[in-house]
């Protein structure tokens, strides 16, 4: 018993430094910004900063715009990544090997660079429009438009999500799938009855990270997005540094935090279940 208590204290000592760091650079600022967001213009405390989010026309447009971009990006990213992960898991050949070896590289490419490349490629007189000109086609307006932000989000998130899903699919034993095939299950049936149920937890993780990443993103919408309406990340920055309204910026970031926390709740719940099941 005494030895266990000693080990417990030792464990705490190992964890405390990183937790202290976390409290200084994450938890304290979040709490500070929460109180900041409750301060109204006369110095008292109320919800006026949050009321403004829903009453101001421009702000409302920004919120709707952000949710649109986020949801569309999430749906496309997850559909493509799932397809790609399943394809890589169950196919063989040189092409697949090549994709397997390279698909993770974009995760590591700096965001500014990728965005800059996309601007040059997809811009008005960009490379792609020159190639299309050969075949007589024209490119719709992508850069400085909602489409541009979504495409940039796909670029950043598909490799990451595919990586998460691949690791989940690798855990499904071949024997399970082969025995399902032996008794005559169709491909779709195998997908919905075996692959989906065995990987839905990772699916949830992927949804959470894509959602959080897109809703709080800054670089891509800042460089590629339209002037109005804006993504909340950009409008937050503008409210903070151009209009110098710290309280309002805090309210916007807390609002996005609340949006994320809904999803975060399910994510943490499923993780905790997993952790509890550990012997």
């Amino acid at each position, binding site marked *: 018993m005494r030895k266990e208590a000693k080990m417990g204290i030792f464990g705490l000592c190992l964890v405390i430094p990183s937790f202290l760091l976390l409290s200084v650079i994450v938890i304290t600022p979040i709490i500070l910004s929460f109180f900041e967001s409750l301060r109204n213009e006369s110095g008292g405390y109320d919800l006026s900063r949050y009321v403004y989010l829903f009453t101001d026309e421009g702000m409302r447009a920004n919120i709707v715009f952000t949710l649109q971009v986020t949801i569309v990006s999430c749906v496309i990213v997850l559909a493509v990544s799932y397809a790609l992960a399943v394809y890589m898991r169950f196919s063989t050949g040189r092409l697949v090997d090549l994709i397997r070896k390279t698909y993770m590289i974009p995760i590591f490419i700096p965001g500014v660079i990728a965005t800059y490349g996309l601007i040059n490629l997809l811009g008005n007189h960009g490379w792609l429009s020159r190639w299309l000109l050969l075949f007589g086609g024209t490119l719709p307006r992508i850069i400085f438009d909602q489409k541009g932000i979504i495409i940039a989000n*796909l670029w950043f998130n598909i490799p990451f999500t595919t990586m998460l899903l691949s690791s989940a699919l690798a855990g499904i034993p071949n024997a399970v799938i082969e025995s399902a095939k032996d008794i005559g299950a169709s491909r779709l049936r195998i997908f919905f009855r075996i692959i989906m149920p065995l990987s839905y937890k990772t699916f949830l993780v992927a949804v959470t990270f894509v959602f959080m990443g897109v809703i709080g993103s800054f670089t891509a919408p800042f460089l590629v997005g339209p002037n109005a309406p804006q993504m909340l990340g950009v409008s937050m920055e503008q409210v903070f540094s151009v209009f110098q309204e710290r309280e309002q910026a805090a309210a916007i970031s807390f609002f996005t935090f609340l949006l994320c926390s809904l999803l975060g709740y399910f994510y943490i719940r499923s993780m905790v279940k997993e952790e509890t099941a550990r012997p």
Partner: protein
Amino acid sequence: MSWYFRAIGFRKIFEFLLLVAFVVFFVGPLLNLAVLAFSSKWNYPDLLPRQWSLQWWHFVLQEDDIAKSIGLSFLIAALVTVLSIVICIPAAYAFARIRFPLSRFFLFSFLLTHAFPKMGLYVSIAVLFYKLGLMNTLLGVVLVHMINVLMFMTWIPTAAFRNVHTAQEESARDVGATPFRVFRSITLPMAMPGILVASIFTFLNSLDEAQGTFLVGIPDFKTMPIVMYSIIADFPSSAGAVFSIILTAPTIILLLAAQRLVSADIMASGFQVK
């Protein structure tokens, strides 16, 4: 025509189209930058530059700001990596091997780093740093960079330590090794691939970080991505392309060197508990 398609199989065609789409989408932007970097004259609607040259490389490499930013970026990235190893690896070992009160609470608290919109978090941090006098200091910048890496720098090694079989540690104990010896000669080497991947990811993440540095490190700490922001705004796109290549080179080199270690399984363990 259709007999031809049938002969090589629709599956092959599908795979080929898939690969083309994949390459155009993911490689296209980077390839475009690579071509731009070596061009001196490339007007619309030419498919390829009319003149190739290295003039922008000379230009970029001669700028003082740029050479300085490269050194600074690497210094900061190295500091961030070392500091996060020192702080996070012991915690990861504790999560994997030691029972202690509130361990689950501590493990999941790292999720907070990814749950708050980054811009909002940086803004709040800037407010706090003003009060603490950490604005425009090296320590301030390093701390901001650590936000992004804390979670996977703890979770990936945690998973790596958990994957080491306790039976191996126990048998070493049985033949008389001290706990420290067991850790040094058995647990640590077996968890090394995970720790290395996490460290590389941390290093690259720090090289890439722009928004937080922009807010906290101005005006003295101009890292490569920050210089990139101003290059995009002030110089022709060829200069931006050259600098993009310089900024991407460390990523490619490190990834090639660690190619065998970086697997989806190890990376994924940084974002979920399995």
